[in-house]
């Protein structure tokens, strides 16, 4: 990661932008961090959940007596025990569309009850819970609950769910259509396509995948009968958000009666920001039993209950001129929301995907329509790169198809259509206004670095070894920095999306930064300390960072959509600036000079031109703690808070190049080289971002090559554990070649753009483009993911898709 092309941020102590070691790592490496499963409160009872074994059925009866009699069982509960609990709400319904869903008491669309009492709608739909003395006793008792089902017909595909006569999931949602959502200009796009010199079309399946954080979800509920307060320890990427949703919207208890704590969380990638039935259940059962109640999911449980990702079936069209100028793009997508609208799933499947489809290209006419439908599958949610990965996939497949059609090099077509630097801020005609970028610089760098020009020679060489080499390009723009709260409200988001930070300077000069965000492995403690230390001009080792406990931290929305560094870090920086400006005002008093003669440097203040008349940071901190001699307009102590709501989103972007080799005999695809040049604006800690980029690309390669959530005709999830759901392993990936460009975002004081997940956006497109390139002489124009050896082997032998 070298070659910075933008300006460096203004630095105080110069620690921002440095690859400092993660201060979280030593504890993790020693196995000393506490995850939810490691929490062991005195007197804890253990909960297990009975999920539906069938995908669609009416429940005729539930018999729990036998289970209640088993050793160690403390309680068996069904929907009948929770009639006064509100349904879990969906808070992101696509903007501008009616939700067609039974309302929640607060006027929100109610997504699902805590337990299902009448009709189950997917395998894993929770029906009953057991609480027992040990986890084994709880799990064993599930088998003793007998449920009588009346089977109902099943549908698992979005397009089929919308067809005439399809099984109906919800009475209130006729035809299973949750939303018909559009963006862009339909008439203009249709006209451009009708008038075009060249049009190409593709039918794409962006298969459903399972995020698979290595730590399954878990929750511990602890009700205190003396204070009437509930504490929830949970695998959450947004403790404040869960507190808001659970207290006000589900349990109906006062906000200040619920404390949510995120201990160390073992990865999330989008899944742990959602509301799940287990969260209210452990709280309610803790109250009922007078003991802490703990639930830890299994891998199979996770696969059948935690939100899944992607899942679009699309018909896409691109129009252009014979000489390579793209004039229009159009997408019709059938999005599979699963059995219930998850907390924000419908928004992910529509706005995040649709508004992003034109990517890095300057296209005159674009239109996207999404039919978001309910089916008998696990609810859909976010997944690393969500929405944006689906968008990049369709666009980048289309560009290659178009290049093939007009006989032009795919790199040349892309280069010709990139949004030029002068056009920023750039309105993409689909609802996003890109903040900044130098796309050509980025693109050229990636093409050059990948050795693109040498590919013909490498292809010929590979053939001598029985391999077919292919090269695939993919570019992307990933909207990040959610977000401007008002703008998000226009997208249908029911809630603020700002972020916050509090900084407290202790009398001895050490500093505590407390943020509303919460890490799921992003080394927040390291990076936010760098931000504060840099602004204040102090040593980062004196800065402590706290987060993840709603009783301690200021409000915030959490970590999702690569927002922590461009949302929470600016809140830290702005708060540090408040501290600094207060120290300058107070410093004038302490030094006995006018304010405009005060110089702030190295954390302390001194008189301009007289460094003897000075106070160090520690001296200032102590003086502020005493508060002696301060005029009335300067309050004692140093304790400031900022809530940062940006004026606009930010838009990281980049170019990836995949080189694959396909074994002629086995059809196996190996990624032999991978080059990525990403632009995330100014980066706080390149070492940490490097790790996130490497992980993200690997995740994207997983979708291209091996990952798929497979449901059978009965709606049974076949790929329900890690023997049947393939995740990339160490031997599946090579080292990557990585570089960056830097175009700062004007929409936050750090010039930052989202970084964590952005590199998950293009790899699937790059790899499929590479494989299609390798098979082009066989007339192959597209292969659906995942590109399993069998699928490729069949195409090598001339079989149709």
């Amino acid at each position: 990661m070298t070659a910075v092309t933008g300006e460096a941020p203004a630095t105080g102590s110069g620690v921002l932008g440095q690859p400092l070691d993660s201060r979280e790592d030593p504890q993790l490496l020693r196995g000393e961090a506490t995850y939810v499963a490691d929490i062991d409160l005195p007197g804890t009872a253990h909960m297990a959940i009975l999920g539906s074994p069938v995908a669609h059925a009416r429940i005729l009866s539930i018999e729990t007596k036998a289970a209640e009699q088993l050793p160690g069982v403390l309680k068996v509960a069904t929907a009948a025990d929770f009639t006064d609990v509100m349904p879990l709400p969906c808070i992101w319904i696509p903007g501008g569309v009616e939700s067609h869903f039974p309302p929640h008491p607060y006027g929100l669309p109610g997504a699902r009850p805590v337990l299902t009492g009448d009709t189950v709608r997917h395998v894993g739909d929770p029906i009953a819970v057991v609480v027992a003395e040990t986890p084994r006793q709880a799990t064993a008792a599930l088998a003793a609950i007998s449920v009588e089902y009346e089977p109902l017909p099943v549908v698992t595909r979005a397009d089929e769910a919308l067809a005439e006569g399809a099984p109906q999931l919800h009475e209130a949602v006729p035809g299973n259509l949750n939303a018909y959502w559009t963006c862009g200009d339909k008439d203009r796009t249709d006209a451009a396509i009708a008038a075009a010199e060249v049009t190409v079309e593709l039918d794409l399946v962006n298969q459903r995948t399972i995020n698979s954080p290595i730590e399954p979800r878990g929750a511990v509920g602890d009700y205190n009968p003396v204070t009437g307060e509930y504490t929830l320890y949970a695998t959450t990427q947004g403790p404040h958000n869960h507190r808001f949703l659970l207290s006000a919207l589900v349990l109906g208890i006062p906000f200040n009666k619920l404390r949510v704590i995120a201990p160390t969380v073992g990865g999330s990638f989008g899944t742990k920001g959602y509301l799940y039935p287990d969260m209210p259940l452990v709280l309610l059962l803790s109250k009922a039993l007078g003991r802490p109640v703990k639930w830890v999911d299994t891998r199979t449980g996770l696969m059948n209950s935690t939100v899944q990702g992607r899942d679009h079936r699309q018909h896409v069209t691109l129009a252009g001129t014979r000489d390579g100028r793209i004039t229009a793009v159009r997408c019709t997508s059938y999005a599979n929301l699963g059995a219930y609208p998850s907390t924000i799933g419908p928004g992910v499947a529509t706005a995040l995907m649709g508004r992003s489809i034109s990517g890095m290209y300057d296209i005159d006419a674009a239109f996207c329509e999404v039919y978001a439908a309910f089916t008998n599958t696990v609810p859909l949610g976010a997944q690393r790169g969500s929405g944006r990965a689906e968008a990049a996939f369709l666009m980048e497949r289309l560009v290659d198809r178009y290049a093939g059609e007009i006989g032009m090099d795919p790199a040349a077509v892309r280069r010709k259509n990139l949004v030029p630097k002068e056009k920023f801020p750039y309105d993409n005609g689909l609802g996003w206004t890109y903040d900044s970028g130098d796309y050509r610089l980025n693109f050229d760098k990636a093409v050059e670095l990948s050795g693109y020009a040498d590919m013909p020679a490498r292809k010929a060489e590979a053939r001598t070894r029985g391999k077919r080499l292919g090269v695939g390009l993919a570019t992307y723009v990933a909207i990040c920095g959610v977000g401007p709260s008002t703008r998000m409200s226009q997208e249908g988001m029911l809630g603020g999306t700002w972020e916050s930070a509090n900084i407290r300077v202790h009398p001895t000069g050490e500093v505590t930064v407390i943020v509303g965000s919460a890490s799921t492995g992003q080394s927040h403690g390291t990076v936010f300390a760098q931000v504060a230390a840099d602004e204040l001009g102090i040593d980062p080792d004196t800065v402590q960072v706290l987060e993840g406990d709603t009783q301690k931290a200021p409000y915030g929305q959490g970590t999702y959509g690569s927002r922590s560094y461009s949302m929470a870090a600016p809140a830290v920086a702005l708060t540090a600036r408040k501290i600094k400006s207060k120290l300058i005002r107070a410093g004038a008093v302490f030094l006995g000079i006018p304010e405009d003669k005060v110089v702030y440097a190295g954390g302390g203040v001194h008189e301009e031109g007289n460094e003897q008349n000075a106070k160090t940071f520690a001296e200032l901190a102590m003086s502020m703690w005493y508060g002696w001699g301060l005029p009335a307009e300067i309050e004692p102590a140093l304790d400031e808070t900022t809530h940062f709501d940006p004026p606009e989103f930010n838009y990281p972007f980049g170019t990836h190049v995949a080189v694959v080799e396909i074994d002629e005999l086995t059809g196996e695809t190996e990624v032999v080289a991978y080059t990525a040049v990403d632009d995330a604006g100014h980066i706080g800690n390149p070492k940490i971002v490097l790790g996130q980029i490497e992980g993200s690309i690997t995740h994207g390669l997983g979708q291209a090559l091996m990952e798929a959530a497979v449901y059978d005709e009965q709606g049974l999830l076949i790929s329900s554990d890690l023997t049947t759901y393939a995740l990339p392993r160490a031997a599946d990936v090579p080292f990557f070649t990585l570089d960056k460009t830097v175009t700062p975002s004007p929409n936050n004081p750090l010039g930052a753009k989202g970084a964590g997940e952005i590199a998950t956006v293009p790899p699937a497109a790059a790899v499929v483009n590479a494989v299609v390139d390798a098979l082009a002489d066989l007339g192959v124009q597209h292969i659906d993911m995942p590109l399993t050896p069998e699928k490729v082997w069949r195409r090598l032998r001339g079989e149709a898709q």
Partner: protein
Amino acid sequence: MNGRPEQFSAQPNELLVERLRDGLGLTGTKVGCDTGQCGTCVVRLDGRSVKSCLVLTASAAGGEVATIEGETTRGGELSGLQEALRQEHGTQCGFCTPGMVMALGELVENTADREAPTEPEIREWLTGNLCRCTGYHSVVRGVQRACATARSAAGQEV
């Protein structure tokens, strides 16, 4: 257990990972799957790395079990492998990390008197451990670094 004798009676169907986590409070060893696929539960049994979710406690009787807690004292100095992983930022959420450290220890220890493992060998060694955060790159670099350090300490060419 980590060099200390432990005496207890176990149910015949009790898994070693259950004994470690629930019985002995050694929660550094993690559970990530139900099928022996993820490697978060790897410990060393008589010096060899094993998936403790696939080992019955009773079958480990009389054996020497080493867990992540035995690698260092609480808050203590990192081992060579841990230090190398720290320098390469080989851990993000850290859930896979104890299992990786236990699985990789054998590989790194053997490097002092043999050839250093190649990159494909390291990747092969790691196939029993899943990591969703890092994509393994920093872990592989960490192992390379740890091997280099171990070899130079043993007077080998790096």
